């Protein structure tokens, strides 16, 4: 394939660079976007299309792979290579592609049902393997394409068409799940916050290995306003922790912060009472995932109080595909690749 070039993004160093300057328009396909008017997916699509030129990659070397669901229509709207596959299986298909083609930048688009319900197995195994994939998980806490059943992230007691008396399912916290699945990069962002979305995409793109980005996304038809407390100007700053590497972990309004209690657990305290020096400093590169996990558990799934937004974890572990390539190279250096020798084996006889 094409020659490799050195880029600012280490995970993309084997991907050929674009010849000219790109713009968001270059990444818009000729297909009419068919999400419901007002859907949060529009904002994410626009955010991604405007971020892509920053990578400076040849767009024919970018591939978007999705499963099934509203979010999974995403590849059709990107003027790159793309595959709209089957429900839940995008990480598996993308793994096969990414392992065999290090010259590609492979992105997976999935939803809370696609990734966490029918495709849960593929998601956790992709994360533990650490294949060079970027997974964008659009979480709207509902099944949209099937018209409004509860999802694995819906809150307990959720009344939907399939749960008229309320959901009995304990929801998944996608960040906690990913951290438990040995993920090397886990982040969370919000569809409507373009600046934060772009920053998070950049961090994910820079990461070597699998990056999981949970994007809180609004389904204005079946679960409208699910994330409103984190969006409206009146409440968001008092509900949201902004995770920034090297910075103390506080609510955006600065009123409360995270401290470590005597028993080692994390606690939320008034900053005025404990002082800024007592606040926990966020370390995305900590090998030990326990603080990241504890942070992921702070939020209340019902009220959304104390929801951390940002990069939870970003550690270096040689990606699966790099190790795979190393084994291939070692094997090729170490033996004959003569087909006739292989077929003959060592124990033959001649009949004349």
């Amino acid at each position, binding site marked *: 394939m094409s020659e490799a070039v050195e880029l600012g993004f280490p995970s993309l160093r084997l991907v050929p660079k674009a010849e000219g300057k790109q713009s968001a328009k270059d990444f818009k396909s000729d297909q009419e976007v068919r999400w419901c008017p007002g859907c949060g997916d529009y904002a994410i699509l626009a955010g991604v299309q405007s971020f892509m030129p920053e990578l400076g990659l040849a767009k024919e070397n970018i591939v978007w792979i999705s499963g099934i669901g509203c979010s999974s229509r995403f590849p*059709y709207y990107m003027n790159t290579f793309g595959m709209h596959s089957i429900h839940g299986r995008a990480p598996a298909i993308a793994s096969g592609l990414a392992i*065999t*083609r290090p010259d590609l930048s492979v992105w997976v688009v999935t939803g809370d049902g696609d990734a966490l319900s029918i495709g849960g197995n*593929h998601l956790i*195994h992709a994360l533990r393997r650490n294949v060079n994939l970027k997974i964008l998980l659009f979480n709207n806490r509902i099944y949209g394409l099937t018209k409004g059943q509860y999802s694995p992230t819906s809150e307990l007691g959720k009344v939907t068409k399939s749960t008229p008396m309320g959901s009995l399912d304990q929801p998944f916290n996608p960040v906690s799940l990913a951290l438990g699945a040995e993920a090397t990069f886990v982040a969370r962002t919000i569809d409507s916050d373009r600046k934060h979305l772009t920053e998070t995409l950049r961090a994910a793109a820079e990461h070597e290995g699998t990056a999981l980005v949970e994007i809180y996304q609004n389904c204005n038809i079946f679960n409208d306003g699910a994330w409103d407390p984190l969006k409206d100007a009146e409440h968001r700053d008092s509900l949201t922790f902004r995770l920034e590497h090297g910075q103390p972990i506080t609510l955006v309004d600065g009123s409360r912060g995270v401290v470590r209690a005597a028993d080692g657990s994390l606690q939320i305290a008034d900053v005025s009472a404990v002082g800024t020096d007592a606040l926990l400093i966020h370390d995305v590169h900590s090998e030990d995932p326990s603080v990241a996990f504890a942070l992921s558990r702070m939020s209340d799934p019902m009220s959304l109080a104390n929801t951390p937004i940002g990069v939870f974890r970003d550690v270096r572990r040689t990606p699966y595909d790099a190790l795979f390539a190393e084994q291939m190279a070692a094997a090729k250096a170490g033996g004959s690749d003569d*087909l006739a020798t292989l077929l003959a084996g060592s*124990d033959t006889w001649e009949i004349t």
Partner: protein
Amino acid sequence: MGKQTVQLDRVIIRFAGDSGDGMQLTGDQFTSRTASFGNDLSTLPDFPAEIRAPAGTIPGVSAFQLHFADHDITTAGDTPNVLVAMNPAALKANIRDIPRGADIIVNTDEFTPRNLTKVGYDTNPLEDGSLQSYAVHPIPLTSMTVEALKGIEITKKEAERAKNMFALGLLSWLYHRPTEGTVTFLKQKFAKKPEILAANITAFEAGWSYGETTEDFSVQYEVKPAVMAPGRYRNMSGNLALAYGLIAASQRAELPLFLGSYPITPASDILHELAKHKRFGVMTFQAEDEIAGIGAALGASYGGMLGVTTTSGPGVALKSETIGLAVSLELPLVIVDVQRGGPSTGLPTKTEQADLLQAMFGRNGEAPVPIVAPRSPGDCFDAAIEAVRIATTYRTPVFLLSDGYVANGSEPWSIPEVDSLPDLRVQFATEHNHTKADGTTEFWPFLRDPETLARPWAVPGTKGLEHRIGGIEKADGTGNISYDADNHEKMVRLRQAKIDGISVPDLEVDDPDGDARVLVLGWGSTYGPINAACQMSRRKGSSVAQAHLRHLNPFPANTAEVLRRYDKVVIPEMNLGQLALLIRGRFLVDAIPYNQVRGLPFRAEELAGVIKDVVASV
């Protein structure tokens, strides 16, 4: 001290013992020596699904049958001439298959009251006269082995474990097998354990010497080498041949092979084998489940690799949705199904042909998939190459339907010249293929080759060919999402026409007498038993024709014509009549199904009986 040598034209030996007795290894070694001696041969390993069932019990019996001859043979044989029974369970489990007059070599050390009781013998069959009509050779194999190994620094248990080599030595003497190969094999296997190596070689030699000196065996047998076509040969098992066929196809296609797989009996050996051959650019990926195995393979195919997945029937069930996606995406993919007894978990280590209709129809919607089936262990090599040819030429998933019998069986294999293998190179799309009304050009991912109806294989990384594909119905040509009624009708028919139009070789008929009125039609691993049965029938004066289908979808173009030539068509299958259903439905031929699902291949003699009855009825 020479004994009398008796010439035989063929021999069937069955080694049977406990799962831990090393019967498969013993059988393999006897087979290798027999192969290099130049006999034609065919083998049937038969082992339990449990790794180590309780010792000394019937479920724990593992057996290996070998048929070797001075002439061309195609089955592992119906009835053994010799049974080697390492314990009472092995005797009890196998005695009903042994014809009167046959030799039975038993390890008397294991015939203890406790072991006899364990398998339900009230009295010792070696003493109660129940084996009177057999030539029983009672030998204390274990204690003689332990005695022979005195002086070697190993435990008693380790010494006892070498008893299979004592048995192998005895059988090698009895049938004039060369010994060097076995010694070489042991030296390699136990290179790092000199005491165990010494024990095994000593036991092997002790077994040989015992044969020479004991009065229990008055004669030695000899089976002369078979007359086979000139060439260089090796012994070849089905799974190995299939793995080699995939590697060869990858080399000839100049496409790196990517295997996405999940372990399952009896297909795992293909994964193991391919994992050894990274130097040929072979990539193997053990996925988290069957679905991910095929998903990764499809992803690799999308990226321009030769994507392959290997599994057995239960795995195919899980992969069905992805196979449907591959049909819709029109990407090359090879799905290897090494069939086993079903339904559900069924009989993991036993053979069956009951996945034919699953391969044919087991998907939602109209989702035609070509099917190729090997007829013998060595034929798995050619069948794999053929499956790859169809997949890459027609941009379609292809089923390769092997089964437990051909997968684990082995036969002499004429090593092909690499240059004689087909050229499978493919052309990826590199440029626009459609001119718009305004004179500009663009890429249409679903613009078809007029001859093959295959769409372009446009791999990511190809400048200017950015496009999106998916499982949603797509517009003919552009590939854009389309819910249009007429377009869907057109696309369904196009996908079907593409598969129906695959060029496959004509069905050949073997009718040496030229006047047969009965045709025996088979597919897959039943070739051997059907062939042996037809030969048997002809020797007894019945005219019968044989035809064997390698391509089950599409059928060869001359199939209808061949079927109509005969008054009666008999279809033996290891299922309840799946090919018969297809033949009846497709060709309106009132085929006569003959079906067995015993987890074992047909017996030739039984099939010959069926043929005789049908021939008599026309």
